[in-house]
Every structure is written in C-alpha cells, then in structure tokens.
C-alpha cells in the first residue's frame, strides 16, 4: 500500500469509530485529539481494527505514534508497504 492508500484506510477506520465526525477537513499535521473527540478507547479501537483488517500489530509502546494522521501514516508505512491495495 502507498502512503495515500494507508491514509485512506485510516480514514475508513476513523469513520466507523467516530461516525458523527466530519473528516473531510482533517489536518494531517495536527493531533487527532485537537480536531475530534477521541478517547483512549478510540485509539485502542484503531489498533484493533488495523490488526483485524490488515493483520498489522501495533504494540502498546508504539501507541504514541498514532497521535496525528501524519505520524500514523509514517509509522505504518514500513509495516504496510508490502500489502496489496484494496
């Protein structure tokens, strides 16, 4: 998957987690928390969805990488590069 495809995959997951949020104006450089209502359970759900959908493991010590879209995509890039696009 390319970074753009990874980004699209994250958006898809966020849409299921926060169905009431408008994600079209998401600023990739800014923290998710500053732009939408996400609590620690929501971040855990992102981790669980990544594993379920793409078999990607995000260990607890790496959770800090999921603060913004930009940091999430760069963290996942090496882990998801070999996956085929959907």
């Amino acid at each position, binding site marked *: 998957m390319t970074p753009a495809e990874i980004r699209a995959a994250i958006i898809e997951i966020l849409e299921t*987690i926060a169905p009431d949020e408008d994600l079209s104006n998401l600023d990739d450089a800014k923290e998710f928390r500053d732009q939408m209502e996400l609590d620690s*359970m929501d971040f*855990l759900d992102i*981790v669980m969805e990544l*594993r379920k959908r793409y*078999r990607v*493991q995000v*260990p607890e010590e790496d959770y800090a990488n999921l603060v913004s879209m930009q940091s999430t995509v760069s963290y996942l890039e090496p882990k998801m590069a070999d996956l085929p696009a959907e």
Partner: protein
Amino acid sequence: MPRDFLKGVKQKYDVIVIGSGLAGLTSANILGRAGYDVLLLEQHYKLGGMATWFKRPKGHIFDVSLHGFPYGMMKSCRRYWCQEIADRIVPLRGVLFDNPQFTLKTTYDRESFTELLQSKFGVEAATIREFFDTARGMNFYDDQQLTTKELFERFFPGRNDITRLLMEPITYANGSTLEDPAITYGIVFSNFMSKGVYTFQGGTDLMIGLMKDELEKNGVDIRIKSPVDKISTENGRVKSVHVGDREIECRSVVSNANLLTTIFKMVGEEQFDKDFVEDAKAVRVNNSSTQVYMALGPDDHLDRDTGDLLFTSTAENFETDLLLSRDVTSRTFSVYYPDTRPHDKRQRHLIVSSTNARWEDWADLDDEAYEASKQDLIETTIDALDKYVPNARERVIFSEAATPRTFYHYTRHHHGASFGTKFEGLPVSQALPTQISGLFHAGSVGIIMSGWLGAINYGVIVSNEVDQLLMK
C-alpha cells in the same frame, strides 16, 4: 445422575473465559466475533456477575447494580456489543442529595454542578473550572501520591460539605474513598460529569439476555454452573482449565474471577516469581456492601420528583469510616420506576438501598446474630426511607437484605468485594501475562476499571492483548 453442564464442550479452545461478569462477557464477545474458538464458563446459574437481578414472588424483579453508569456506556455497547443494546441506554435526571450540610437536586453533570458550586456553595467560577479541568486531565499513569482528600483540599480547603457533594456518588459507584489516589477519582468523576448518569431501560435481565444472544451469534460456547478449580500451566504457558474431573485445553485464559482468587486459588503461587507474589499479596480488595431491596404495592404510585438516585446521610460530616460503619448513617436509594421495565405489565415501584460495608463486620456472626443484624438493617432502612417515601412502613410490601456474605456467596469474591481491588490491583492484573504466557485477567481492578463501564472497557483492553498473542 447429576446433569452434565459441560455436555458438548470441545476438547480444546483458543480462549477460555472464566466468569461472566461484564468484563468476561465482553472479552468473550470480542474474541468470538474475531473468529476465535471461545468457551465461557460461569460458576453461578446466571450470567452477569455483579450485573445481576433476582425475582421474588408476586412479580418483583430487583436490580442489584443497574443505576447508573456514565454516558460512555452507550459508545462501548454500540461498538463491543450491538446497536440494540446501546439504543436502550437512557439518562437518569433526578439525583438528590440530602444530609445535615445541604439538600439539593441535580442532573449530575458539569453544567449543573458548576451552577450549584457557585450559587449554593459560593465557589468562584475560575476555581470550579480549574477543578473540572484538572480532574478531566488525569491519566492512570499520572502521579499516584496525591490522594482524593488532598485534591479536594487544594481546590476547596476546609470545605467538608463540598467534599461530600463531590465524593458521595463516586463512593456509591466504585467504593473509592478519600484516601485513594486522586487519579482514580478524577477519571471516574469526569466520566460521569461529561453527560450525567445513565441506566439501561428494560432491566439487567434484558441486557444480559441480549448479550447472551449476541455471544451465541458470535459462536461462543457458554456453560453455567461450571466452577473452575484449577488453571494448569506448562513451561510458563497456559495449558488447560479444570472443571471438576474435566480438563479442557486452551491457548489462553481470560479470568474474570477475582484477581486474588485467580492467582492464589486457580493457578497457585508457586507458578509465579517471588516478587510478583509479593506484589499480589499486597493488593487490597475493595470493601463490600449491604443492600436492602424494597417493593411498593402494585397499585401504589411514586411521584417522579422523588428522584432516581438519592444520596442520603444523617451524619454531620463526611468521613470514610462513617461510610463503612455497621452503624449506618449513609444510604443511597436507587429508585426503579415502572419504566425500568416498560414491557412489564405490573407497574411496580422498587427501591434498593445501598451502603458500603466491611466483610469483617459480618463474617463471623453466628446464625442467630446474622439474621438479627439483617432484620435490623431492613427495619432501620425502611425508617430512613420514610422521609422520601412517606408512610414507607405501610407501603413497602416486600423487603429483603443482602450483606457481604450474600455477595461472597454469589460471586465468590474474596471478602465479598463488590468493587474489585484498590489501585495497586491494576498493575498486578496487567502483569499476569508476563508471568504466564496466555494468562490474562479482566475484571474490576484499580478502582478505575470498576463499575459497568470500567469492567466492559477493561474487557476490551485485555481482548486486544489476547488477540495480539493468538495472532502471532
């Protein structure tokens, strides 16, 4: 021949969940839904653990712990259960406080509390805002030295009345006290203050029934009346679970039994590192409770203004010791109106009085003294109810009491604990899989993982770890 409750159980499972409290149920559901082979074992004949109810003659159905939980429950039920369960979560708007220091009514959310603290308690708006923001900013990995008492003292020095307003409902919700770490208070209080108190419309029996349907849909094998005697390990890994003379193999175990029961009774301390055993032995279980269940007659009517949750006390001041004392001065009345079970034709009003209690005060009474104490608890509670439900003595047509011994009987929790463990239980619970691979614990620990929402969410957190291990 006795009935074989384990009939049809497979030889081997990916996950065996021990105990069907809300944490166990949720773990089983998530892992079953993820495609794992899951067996859920419950020692009692009913699922739900402390999320329970019981029926009595003449159609009374009493809920033990239904009122109430934070709004977050709606999201957790939608995501980890199903929309049908989430849709039945409704607000409780009538929260009442009545004690020698103040009497007031609130919707128990930030807006209402801000207004009250300003108008009734004369606190500056800036102080209130700073207090709420401090509480909301607390994380479980923050400083644990600060106690809740010190937190209150920092913002509202010398104000025992404000302490009471802020603490009483949380003590009811999770058994925590002024001496516990402030973070446990901040996290739970903020959860409630975000949108108030909620309940499940339809009763605990309906909710657990819907959960059971969902578990079966997700392929989870459920067996009741199946107490686990032992968890076997081999080369540092979980191997099997023993129920009577049956041994069932498994790749992982999620124990929703009490943390100490899991470590010392089911596994055995010789299986763990010395340091871990020391830490586990130092874990204090939370207090237990007494409850009095009271039913009004079928034709009786109670005005909605009576309130849903009544925090009442006759004690002049607010102190932890008074809350636990056998000489009861504080009672929380949960009022269940007919719309608790809208489908039930009998329009019944039920009231459950809850008071935190110590195991030691009830454990060693002989039969006669125990029965007398129970009766005394019932009589004094009906007397206390009279202030809120006039002529209570004539109107209450059925009453019954539960004590720490009752809670022990049904849950097998160490010392009848009704709120899991104190804060130090959380790291011990989380460290379990580092001691024995595949062995997890999910249940009320550390105060913050207690209550319906805390238990469900901890079940989710642990399922994530189980999934991570099994997928390797």
